[in-house]
Structures are given as C-alpha cells and as structure tokens.
C-alpha cells in the first residue's frame, strides 16, 4: 500500500528560552547566543550551576479564552503552545471535527512541579490535609487533558512519557494516525516544565547540562485540509522510526533508527541537509554522518521529553537552509527515535 506523502505541519506554537512563538524564537536562533541564564523561578539545588533555560514571562490569559484556577507549569506551557499553534494555523473552532482531531503529546516529567507541592503538603500536614485541587494536576496526563478540554479535542488521545524520546514518539504517532485515516488533524508535540525534583534528579545522575523548559506543538494534517482553510504548510512530515535496545548499543540502535526513518520518509541520506539533535544524543550519531549536525539544546537547555518537538520547531526557524531535516533523539535507557521533515510543498500537491 503506498504511503501518503501529503502530511504536513501547518502550524507550530513554541515556547522555550529562545522566546515565545516561531518568529521570536527564530530571531534568537539566528543570533546563535545561548539563552540559558541564572534561574529566576527556582532556587538551584545544592551545588548546581544555576544556569537554566527558562521561558520568558508570558500571560496565559492573553492566549486562552477561559481563566484557570490552578495550572502546573507543564500544563501552562502546553496550553500556551496549543493556543499559539491554533492562532498561527488559523484554526478556528469550526475548522475541525472534534472526534476526528487527535492529541499526541510527549513529556518526561508531566506534572512534577505539582506532585512535589502535593507531596510536600502530605509530609508537612498529613494525609488528611492535602489539597484536592492539586492531585489531578499532578498526573502526567493533566496537560494533554486540559488541552482536550480547552478546545474539545475528542479524537485519538496519546500521552507519551518515554523519557527523552517522548515527543518524537508523539510526532510519529501523529504521522501514523493521519496515514491510516484515524484522524484528520493531530495536535502533536511535547512540553516539559522545570521543577526542583527534576533538577535534583539530573544532578544526582551526573547530568550537568543546564535544564530547560519549553513546549512545541504542531498542527499535523493533510496538505489539502491546510490549504482549504487558507493556511500554508510549513513543512512536510515525511517519516519516522523508533527503536529500543540496551544502553551499551545505543550507537547501533541510533544508526538503525535513522536508516529506518529515512526509508519511511522515502529519502536517501544525501538528501538530508541538517541533523538536529540534543547534546546527549549527539555522541551516538555515526561520526561519518554526512549532514550538518546541530545540538540545538545547547542554546535553550535540555528539555528532556519535549526534546524532539523543540528540535522539530528549530527545523522551521530557517526552513530554506535546514530542510529536509532529520530529528534524532535518544534516551539513556537505549531508546532512539527519529523524524524526517521535508520542504513544504510549493503548491497544492496530491495524495501519495
């Protein structure tokens, strides 16, 4: 059966230390200066270097129609990214069928900031005096659920918590949902909030890269539906692959994953212009790789589960010079996941 090649990214809402929105982030990217600075929202734990990649201040109320009594930081970031994607993709309330619209989101830590708050109350005050409002927001699926509720997105619903490859897996799931026709539109990407336990866990395992926070959410759909509402595709989502293995064999797993992703995309290795990856994944790339390799999170910090989504957003900062791009992420557990993004179709192109 031929694989559909008309699946596109029609909008991107992104927030990271580079800025808010595609335009602002792209401008910061072009400057090429690291955007990790001393933390302002958290006191650094222990002996930590205090550099973090914080998202600049923003008012969620400016982006969302309904006020929120409480939000975890990860939910705040994902809701903002979704609002930005809808706005830039010209997606009005009547432009999508709720049951045919899916959500596929990746995060490593979910509502960790809230879980920490909730459990601190438990320790300090006892089980009877915990705050009921906090508990549902501590769930790893709180953020994706809030997006579903905000815009009545009722179709396929997948929340990936697979560590550093989570949002790459989410984007592959979006691609598959569209390929088999289980959805007409998928809001896909990832979000990671910064929390003290997350920072402490990184230090405890010897990870000294500045932690970052951020979100990137894409509208993934067919080219025809994008154009039908007057929007233009930003890129093609051509293919992807996910693999697992032991940590010791991550380089081999990574190579296999990349080979499979390129085959899935129908591209030869020489057709890729840029390989976007994370600082932690870069060592597992073949040293003879023919592409320009960019460890993008050197600029905005390690966003863990949102890593793949933020890398995909970076590919859109300067599409003419970066696409076709390969996004490669891996987890210390031995997992790898890769995505291939292509240049947007110039004109309406059909089918397969």
């Amino acid at each position, binding site marked *: 059966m031929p694989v559909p090649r008309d699946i596109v990214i029609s909008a991107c809402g992104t927030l990271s230390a580079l800025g808010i929105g595609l335009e602002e982030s792209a401008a910061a990217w072009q400057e090429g200066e690291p955007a990790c600075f001393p933390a302002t929202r958290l006191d650094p734990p222990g002996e930590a270097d205090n550099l973090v990649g914080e998202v600049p201040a923003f008012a969620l109320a400016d982006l969302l129609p309904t006020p929120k009594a409480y939000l975890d930081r990860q939910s705040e970031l994902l809701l903002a990214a979704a609002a930005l994607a809808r706005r830039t993709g010209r997606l009005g309330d009547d432009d999508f069928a709720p049951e045919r619209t899916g959500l596929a989101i990746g995060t490593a830590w979910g509502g960790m900031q809230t879980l920490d708050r909730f459990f601190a109350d438990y320790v300090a005050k006892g089980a*009877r005096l915990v705050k009921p409002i906090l508990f549902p927001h501590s769930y790893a699926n709180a953020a994706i659920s809030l997006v579903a509720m905000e815009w009545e997105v009722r179709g396929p619903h997948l929340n990936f918590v697979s560590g550093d490859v989570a949002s790459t897996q989410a984007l592959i799931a979006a691609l598959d949902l569209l390929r088999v026709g289980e959805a007409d539109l998928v809001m896909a990407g990832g979000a990671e909030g910064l929390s003290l336990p997350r920072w402490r866990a990184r230090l*405890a395992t010897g990870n000294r890269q500045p932690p970052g926070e951020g979100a990137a959410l894409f509208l993934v759909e067919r080219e025809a539906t994008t154009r039908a509402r007057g929007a233009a595709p930003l890129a093609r989502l051509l293919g992807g692959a996910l693999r697992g293995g032991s940590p010791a064999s991550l380089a081999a797993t990574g190579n296999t994953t990349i080979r499979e992703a390129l085959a899935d995309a129908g591209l030869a290795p020489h057709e890729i212009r840029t390989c976007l990856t994370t600082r932690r994944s870069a060592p597992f790339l073949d040293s003879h790789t023919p592409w320009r390799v960019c460890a993008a999170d050197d600029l905005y910090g390690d966003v863990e589960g949102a890593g793949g989504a933020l890398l995909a957003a970076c590919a859109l900062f300067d599409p003419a010079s970066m696409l076709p791009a390969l996004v490669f992420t891996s987890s210390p*557990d031995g997992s790898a996941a890769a995505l291939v993004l292509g240049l947007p179709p110039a004109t309406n192109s059909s089918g397969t």
Partner: protein
Amino acid sequence: MAAERIFVTGMGAVTPYGASVDRLWQGLLVAEPGISAIDRFDLGGIACVKGGQIRHYAPPAPPHPLPRLDLATGFALGACTEALAQAGGDATETGLVTASNFGALDEGECALAGEAPETALEACAQALPTRRLAAALGLDGPAVTLSLSCAASAAALAHAAALLRAGRARRLLVAGYDALSRCAWSGLCSLRTMTRDCVRPFDLDRSGTLFSEGACALVLEREDVCAARGGEPLAELSGWATGNNGFHMTAPPPRAAGSAQVMRAAIACAGLTPGDVDHINAHGTGTRPNDLTEAQAIQDLFGPRAASLPVTANKGAIGHLLGAAGGIEAIVSILSQRHGLIPPTANFATPDPEARVDLVVARPREASLRHVLSNSAGFGGCNAALLFTKV
C-alpha cells in the same frame, strides 16, 4: 489489501488474588473479595482504609537481574514473565509498551521525602519501570511508555496494535501496572471517589470505588509473525480506539459521550456494527456518576439491544487497578470468550432503574461470545475501548 490482523498470544496478571491469570479467573468466577485493609503504609487518619493490596508476592527472578526494583515494576515483571512464557518465541525481538498512572512513585516518594538517595528521584519520571522491564527481560524492540490515568493500559494496547499495523514493530509486550503508595493513596482519597462500603457496580446503593494495585501483560503480534513461528493466538484484537471526552478532569460528561464515542470507534475499526457485539466488560467503577453515565452510553450505542447484551464489571471483586485496570479487563474479556463464561459482577443487590444494563450477577453466565468489547475511562477525560474477536 486487508490490514494485517493483530493477535494476542500471551497473557499475565498480578492482582490482589495473586500472581497468575488462572488465579484471577478463578477468583472472579466466584466473585471472591480481593479487598482488604491497607497496612503497607501509615494511612494518616484518612477514612479510606480498604483497597486491593497485594500480599505475599515475590517477583520472579528475571533473565537479567536488576539492582533495584520498585513495587509496580515488580508486579509488572510477574505479569510479563507469565505472558512471555505463554506466548513463547524470542523475547529479544519483542518491543515494550507500558502504561500506568504513577509509575515507580513508591520509590520516588521516598526520595521526595528525603528517605532515599537523590538518585531515586528519577523514579518520579514514568519511563523508569519501562527501562527496568526491558533490561530485566532482555527486550530490544521499541520501548514506549504511556500515561493516560485509568485508561492507560487499554490505551497502551490500542497504541501497540497501531504500531504493529503500521509496521513499526513485529511483536510487542504490553504491560499496565500501578502500586499503592502514600502519595497516590492520599491523593485518591482526597478526590472523594472512594467508598467505605464495598464496590457495587451499577447497584442502586453504590457509593464509590476502591483502588487496588497490580499488573497486567499481553503479548501482541501480527498474524504473519505469529504464523511464521507457529504461535497460538488466544484472540484477535480486532478493534481499538482512544479519545478524550473534553469535559472535566474528574467527572464524566452527560451520558458518557466519550465512552460511547470510543466504543463506537473500536467497533468500526474492526469493520463491525454494534449489533455484532456479544458482551461488554464495563469500566464499572461503582461510583454514582460513572455507572449511571456508562449505562447510558451503552443504551445510546446499542439501543433496545442493550437490555439483553450481557455486561460485567470486574471492579466489584478486585477493586480498581488504576493503570492496570483496562488491561486486566482485556484479559478477562478474552478468558470469557475462550471459556464461553462471563464472570459475575460482585456485590450487586439492587438494580438502579436509571443505570439499567443486562448485568451478569450472582453466578457466571454461559454465553457463546464471538466479539467482546472492553471499555475503559480515566481522570482527565481519557477514554479507550478494545474489541476482541474469537479465533
């Protein structure tokens, strides 16, 4: 070209009854109570003191021993070992899709409370049990972790089926698990969904649910892969769907529209109509809102036929196994199909005229079951439904 069929070839369970699928089945057939007083941790004076705590359980020794094992991963290891043994074949060509609400939180909360080394904080991130299971069992296929509250393991089965059909894996072990811990228990109590009575799904006097711990595991593989190695299918996973009701973090929408949607979609995914379904294994939590709206969803989807479509709810006997619940109910659906026997819903005494379904009560009901539907839901509006077809 017809899509490749997806077969279930192995099943494993660790529940409050004990560690095996057979123990689960035998317990459910006689509606044996799986609920007891929680005594693993200090309840801190909370009124909710009963749940499905697993006792006297020791995880099996895995092929590759692990230095540390949290409770939930230990439960999952037992279920996965049983499922892989039944399925046979080569574990090294198998991927892993896992799902839970809380992951290894029993270990993570010790670090949060300063009772364990800082390295244990990584247990607060949900990928840790997946990493441990894959390493312990020597699995080298794709590793995916999902968290979708109490619809998690049903959604994991749905996603695994999609991965197989898309050709992204040949064979997947799907595991759902959760353990009771201080943090989880105090949070679940704070939401006021728990009863001081027993769980009475669809009963007029139902007053809430009781939470349990445990794990489920199912091996899924494509028909061609199963046939090539001479594997024995237990059932076909013929339809699946996930969704979100888009309504509320903890309350179901009117007439459980989200449940009706995913049940309808799972049936359509199998190329069937509601008239083809022979039995429903319901989410049936025993809370007033869930059972009322789930019954309404069944009535809306099946029309007049709902009055004679047998429904059972396993949570009356074993409680609500959180992230493992959907997968456990999938296993029971398959067992019902294979044995031609539907286990009764425990603790049912008085019909609720507003939540009327053809509930199997008191004793198992014999039935010829070709297509069985399993419905799951969870906090955050998560929904998932699975359709199993007899092979």
